[in-house]
């Protein structure tokens, strides 16, 4: 049975709760990190993908003969060969059930195109050559012709009558229909509502753009018939089994996935991509290592997209402005093919927090998946929860504004009261605990919400429009509840422990080492975390859905408990006393009431292997981090340019292991959300061409455009669904900031008659809104 609270007597001494500086930083700040492209490879060949410049059409010619004969070229792979071998399908792992009970249809997501192309950038041929230049020269020799057909690249119109079909087998480009809730209860609530508020908005499509491009390296060992893939993943186990089963047709022990340092994941790196099987099959055929690295423009065109929802939400209110019903109709862009988790994001994931922090008696949800002739879309930081909260918090502000209610008091009135916890929402989610008024009061004070009017007037005197807005978010962590930790004592006063998570920058090497060191009462530099090798670590749930801290720490606690019990038993034997007389504290085992003692490391050295252990644990449920962000903006009406002049955060992440790491996650998430809200958008033209496919035209947040953030947290509401009391923090920032800043901008502009604003609220969009309202 795990401990229910961290060991208070050593808390703080060995690191728990401390902003311990990161152990991985030494290599990162000195240029000694090892990312996938840094791995030295003997005799490696370079892969290059020829991609379709067409958004839709039938392949008329694909002639690779000249390319095969070109200088330096070893192999040119096409879809035809893969199709014959039945190794040409990236399967979706989350097909949803429709209201009639049928499972949605799954079109083939090919590794390399056969017969038709479905989006610009779709992989058509894979060239493996001595150098990238050789491969690119060969690519120019490939004859590729398509009888183009009309494309449907816009998810806002792709369901409309008369739109070109993306897939022949799919009528109206509707990939699925998915429902949740009680439609008749909802309709009844709306029928007798005193007020109904409706809002239609777009959650704009973005590209996650981790700074490290997508990369895949495959090495084949002919003697052992084993494939080793090195790639920037968020946990290599799903990829390992996919490669083994679907592409290499090998037992899974014959495949190893190594994940070195990763330059950012954000969800995008969690799912299989076509180039992974390409390099594997090529490496096996050529019996030489094959490396493929995406160039940035290629990355922008072909990395999985994020968000891309068109939603209409309606709120039913009684005469006291209490919510009686919520109706959501969501259309989600899936792209041309179903990426692994794509159907789940706008449905099950979104649903988790569809009602936010409010007491919503009746909920009705309809989600339609939409195919478009664009690159596939999948999870991006928050994965469904940002979309749900953005919709809810925009709707709450609209409701308050249109009814002449105070935006804060209207929310309070509808909060789930703390006394009602644990509370099962109409979404089916049970929030274990939460004290929303505590957090709200704190953030309003810190943001000086009360003093805003004076600041508004000061800005007005300078010709600027100032607004303040808030977003109260709640999020549900996701992912597998199990996790494993295996500890090996090295015999030199140190130990290694494995994790089933995968850091892409979150600082796991430090956070988990802090916890292990804290539990076993040793120094942080006596413990070393091992990750990223499916040979060394047989199972793992990976990183995503903000699961890492809560699941892995539970496993670390579990194995530490086991090791302490084993240590007591072993020491009791050594000391020839009863196990009940053994004490463990601050890394030392002692016989109660005597001065006979030994360190745990000393014990391990004396009995090699005896203390090594593994634990697989399971958290009781997801956790529900929540918080309130307040954004304050200044808008220049002459240009529409917006500055975020204040940004205040109070988050409830339960108990924090390393507050410094938590704050860093929040900063990063908030800025990604601000990027989406203010300047980022993937733009396709009518023909499905990506218009802004490089950093020249896709506007990323930069140091001089992003605000200072004032971050605070409360530890007054520990999580009750895991023994750490922790709530996952990785995605929360990106869930909260879009609504906070857009609500603030609408607040700034409402005096000009502007009640709605879509993301990205670029200067041009704001200026246009002002012109139109004038």
């Amino acid at each position, binding site marked *: 049975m795990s401990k229910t609270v961290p060991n208070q007597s050593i808390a703080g001494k060995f690191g728990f709760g401390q902003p311990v500086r990161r152990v991985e930083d030494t290599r990162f*700040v000195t240029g000694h990190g090892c990312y996938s492209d840094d791995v030295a490879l003997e005799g490696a060949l370079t892969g290059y993908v020829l991609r379709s410049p067409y958004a839709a059409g039938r392949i008329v010619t694909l002639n690779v003969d000249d390319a095969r004969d070109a200088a330096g070229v070893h192999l040119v792979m096409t879809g035809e060969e893969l199709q014959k071998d039945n190794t040409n399908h990236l399967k979706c792992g989350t097909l949803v059930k429709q209201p009639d009970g049928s499972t949605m249809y799954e079109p083939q997501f090919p590794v390399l195109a056969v017969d038709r192309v479905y989006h610009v950038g779709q992989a058509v041929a894979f060239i493996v050559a001595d150098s990238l230049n050789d491969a690119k020269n060969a690519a120019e020799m490939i004859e590729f012709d398509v009888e183009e057909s009309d494309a449907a690249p816009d998810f806002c119109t792709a369901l409309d009558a008369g739109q070109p079909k993306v897939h022949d087998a799919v009528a109206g480009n509707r990939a699925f229909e998915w429902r949740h809730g009680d439609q008749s209860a909802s309709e009844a609530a709306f029928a007798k509502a005193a007020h109904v508020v409706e809002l239609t908005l777009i959650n704009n499509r973005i590209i996650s753009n981790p*700074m490290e491009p997508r990369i895949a390296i495959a090495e084949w060992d002919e003697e052992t018939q084993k494939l080793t893939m090195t790639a920037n993943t968020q946990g290599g186990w799903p990829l390992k089994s996919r490669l083994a089963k679907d592409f290499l047709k090998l037992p899974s022990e014959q495949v190893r996935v190594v994940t070195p340092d990763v330059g950012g994941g954000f969800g995008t790196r969690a799912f299989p991509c076509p180039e992974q099987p390409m390099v594997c099959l090529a490496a096996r055929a050529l019996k030489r290592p094959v490396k493929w690295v995406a160039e940035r423009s290629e990355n922008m065109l072909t990395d999985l997209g994020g968000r891309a929802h068109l939603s209409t939400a309606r709120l039913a209110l009684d005469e006291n402005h209490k919510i009686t019903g919520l109706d959501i109709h969501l259309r989600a862009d899936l792209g041309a093919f179903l990426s692994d988790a794509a159907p789940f994001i706008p449905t099950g994931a979104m649903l988790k927090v569809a009602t936010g922090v409010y007491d919503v008696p009746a909920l009705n949800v309809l989600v339609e998946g939409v195919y478009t002739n664009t690159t596939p879309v999948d999870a991006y930081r928050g994965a469904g929860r940002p979309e749900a909260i953005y919709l809810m918090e925009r709707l709450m502000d609209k409701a308050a504004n249109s009814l002449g209610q105070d935006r804060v008091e209207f929310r309070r009135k509808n909060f789930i009261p703390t006394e009602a916890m644990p509370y099962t929402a109409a979404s089916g989610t049970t929030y274990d605990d939460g004290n929303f008024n505590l957090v709200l009061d704190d953030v309003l004070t810190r943001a000086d919400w009360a003093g805003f009017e004076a600041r508004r007037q000061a800005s007005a005197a300078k010709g600027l429009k100032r607004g303040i807005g808030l977003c109260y978010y709640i999020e549900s962590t996701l992912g597998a509840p199990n996790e494993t930790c295996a500890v090996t004592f090295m015999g030199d006063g140190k130990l290694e422990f494995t994790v089933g998570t995968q850091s892409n920058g979150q600082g796991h090497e430090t956070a988990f080492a802090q916890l292990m060191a804290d539990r076993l009462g040793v120094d942080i530099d006596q413990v070393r975390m091992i990750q990223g090798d499916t040979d060394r670590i047989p199972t793992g749930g990976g990183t995503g859905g903000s699961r890492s801290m809560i699941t892995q720490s539970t496993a670390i606690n579990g194995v530490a408990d086991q090791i302490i019990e084993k240590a007591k038993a072993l020491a009791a034997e050594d000391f020839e006393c009863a196990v009940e007389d053994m004490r463990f504290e601050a890394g030392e085992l002692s016989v109660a009431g005597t001065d006979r003692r030994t360190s745990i490391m000393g014990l391990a050295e004396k009995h090699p292997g005896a203390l090594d252990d593994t634990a697989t644990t399971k958290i009781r449920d997801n956790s529900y981090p929540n918080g309130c962000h307040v954004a304050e903006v200044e808008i220049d009406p002459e240009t529409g340019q917006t500055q975020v002049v204040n940004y205040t955060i109070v988050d409830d992440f339960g108990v924090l292991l390393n507050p410094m790491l938590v704050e860093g996650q929040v*900063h990063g998430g908030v800025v990604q959300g601000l990027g989406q809200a203010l300047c980022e958008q993937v733009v396709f033209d009518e023909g499905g061409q990506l218009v802004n496919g490089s950093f020249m035209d896709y506007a990323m947040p930069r140091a*001089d455009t992003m605000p200072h*953030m004032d971050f605070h947290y409360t530890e007054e509401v520990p999580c009750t669904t895991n023994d750490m009391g922790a709530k996952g923090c990785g995605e929360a920032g990106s869930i909260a900031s879009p609504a906070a800043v857009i609500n603030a901008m609408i607040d700034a502009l409402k005096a000009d008659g502007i009640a709605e604003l879509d993301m990205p609220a670029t200067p041009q969009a704001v200026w246009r809104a002002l012109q139109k309202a004038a």
Partner: protein
Amino acid sequence: MKISLKINGQDLTAEVAPTTLLVDFLRSDQGLTGTHLGCDTSQCGACMVLVNGDAVKSCTLLAVQLDGAEVTTIEGLSDGETLSPVQEAFREAHGLQCGFCTPGMVVSVTDLLAKNPNPSESEIRHWLEGNICRCTGYQNIVKAAQMAAEKQQAA
């Protein structure tokens, strides 16, 4: 073509093709993989190194242009095991997460402080316009620059 240059204080001579980018020369020929390639339009700054004391993008220079030059990469900023004040400050301030943009950020901040030892927050943020980070939201990078400035002034 033959080039002779100094990299991280070491003289060296090498044969390079005219089309070899400095970043590729550093990473592949010299094994200095600390300098990273993050984009193809010379905008992200992950590839920054110091050339004759100035921060420049190594993806936008040909190796052949460096004949006679002094190059300092991220690896050259530490002195053995001792981190530079800027490197130390990045660690202290949690100014990095995945670390991919970090070499460019550290080089950029090193150059800033050499030219402007006591920059304001606004000056720091403007200086970093050419360095994109997707993880940190920039705040702790700014904090690292401020800490490094203090460290260097105190020294």
